[in-house]
């Protein structure tokens, strides 16, 4: 299985570099959707019960698990707030982004 995990935008200098039909050659990771965000989720790990619900309901695959706790990937988190809304112990706060 080929993994397309490089976060680089593909740019063609000439038609000769392009495939003959429109086909993907890389992932969308170059597109840092974190820039869309107005509010950011902040996890209070002291009160986290490690249930994994925030991870499960994240539509942007932006919550990752490290050392058995959830962390937010701010490069891609669009700030929808589902994690905070669904957290059963309300340990995720949505905080205004400073622009």
């Amino acid at each position, binding site marked *: 299985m*080929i993994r397309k995990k490089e976060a680089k935008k593909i740019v063609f200098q000439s038609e000769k570099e392009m495939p003959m039909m429109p086909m993907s050659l890389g992932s969308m990771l170059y597109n840092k959707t974190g820039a869309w965000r107005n509010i950011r989720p902040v996890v209070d790990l002291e009160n986290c019960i490690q249930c994994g619900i925030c991870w499960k309901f994240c539509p942007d695959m932006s919550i990752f698990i490290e050392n058995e706790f959830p962390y937010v990937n701010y490069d891609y988190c669009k700030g929808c707030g589902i994690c905070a809304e669904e957290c059963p112990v309300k340990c995720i706060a949505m905080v205004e982004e400073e622009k």
Partner: protein
Amino acid sequence: MKKVIMGNHALSYGAMLARSQVIAAYPITPQTQVVELLSEMCADKTLDAKFIKVESEHSAMAACIGASVAGARTFTATSSQGLALMHEMLHWASGGRLPVVMGDINRSMGPGWSIWTDQNDSLSQRDTGWMQYYCASNQEVLDTVIQAFKVSERLAIPSMVILDAFALSHTYEVVDIPDQAKVDEYLPPFRPQVRLTPDDPHAFGGLTSPEHYFELRYKLQKDMEKAPGLIEETGREFETMFGRYLGLVDDYLCDDADIILVTSGTAGYTARVAVDDMRKSGIKAGNLRIKVFRPFPFEHVRRIVKNAKKVAVVDRNISYGHHGMFFQEVKSALYGHDDSLPVFGFIAGLGGRDITPSTFREIADIALSKDRPEEEIIWIGVKR
């Protein structure tokens, strides 16, 4: 092996000998025998293929596209309204660079309902990025299907193999059905460079911005421009193996002709009867049958008509508000090269009205009696 078969079955045998792997088709008169025979071949394993009996022509072409992008050699056949229903998907096949081969039985577009021949169905699809071959005999139909797969797969551009309703589709002729082993040697298995597979996942046909779309279309045209050379090359290869040349055009007594009748489809062979008659009465006539309409054989047309005094293009089709479509193309081929050559445009045989040798005689008489065309188009045989 020689067999007496109908034109529709020539398509089926061509698809069989090419070892089509997926066929998706929907019935329409006068195409039905093509798919009936293919479904029998699939059922008795004469042909190892999957036949998807879809619920419309639109789905037929969509399924062909799916099968082709998965890496299978894919064939379908349709006619008239069915081809029109496919229109959207024709773009999808060529833009996706999928070498689907399709038989089209030239049938007039309704209303009124007509099952008889003219070319407005296929010529309405001329700008979809498909190659178009207009055939004049059952042998040519069978041979062209095999050649079309070879050319299409080499260029990643789909092909339409076209024959007249009834005049060819339901006419029985002696056809040499080549040996499978020799066809296999001529046409190797379809092995696309990229295809839809989890082993090498790509997303095909996604959102394409103005930054890229233009170049993709440029590439399609550049590859289409390679087709005339490739058709001749594969046609000569075919001749070496099977003894029959398959080219872009087929000219008859044109070298010294004063008047050249330009035709397509079965009308070409009818024209030759008229040419022979005229030659007997001292008129130096010739016939140029244009076989490949897309890509258009500009150079061949220019070379063949260059010594003629008159050219009469006979169209079994019309672009309303303009001219017959072969007439348009012949004029555009000559423009800037030989603007002094008078080219006459005739419309004949729409909706299956017979085109006979006397039709051509009438056409030749009109063209010979005038220095230059006095009307944009000349209708032959309208009851006025």
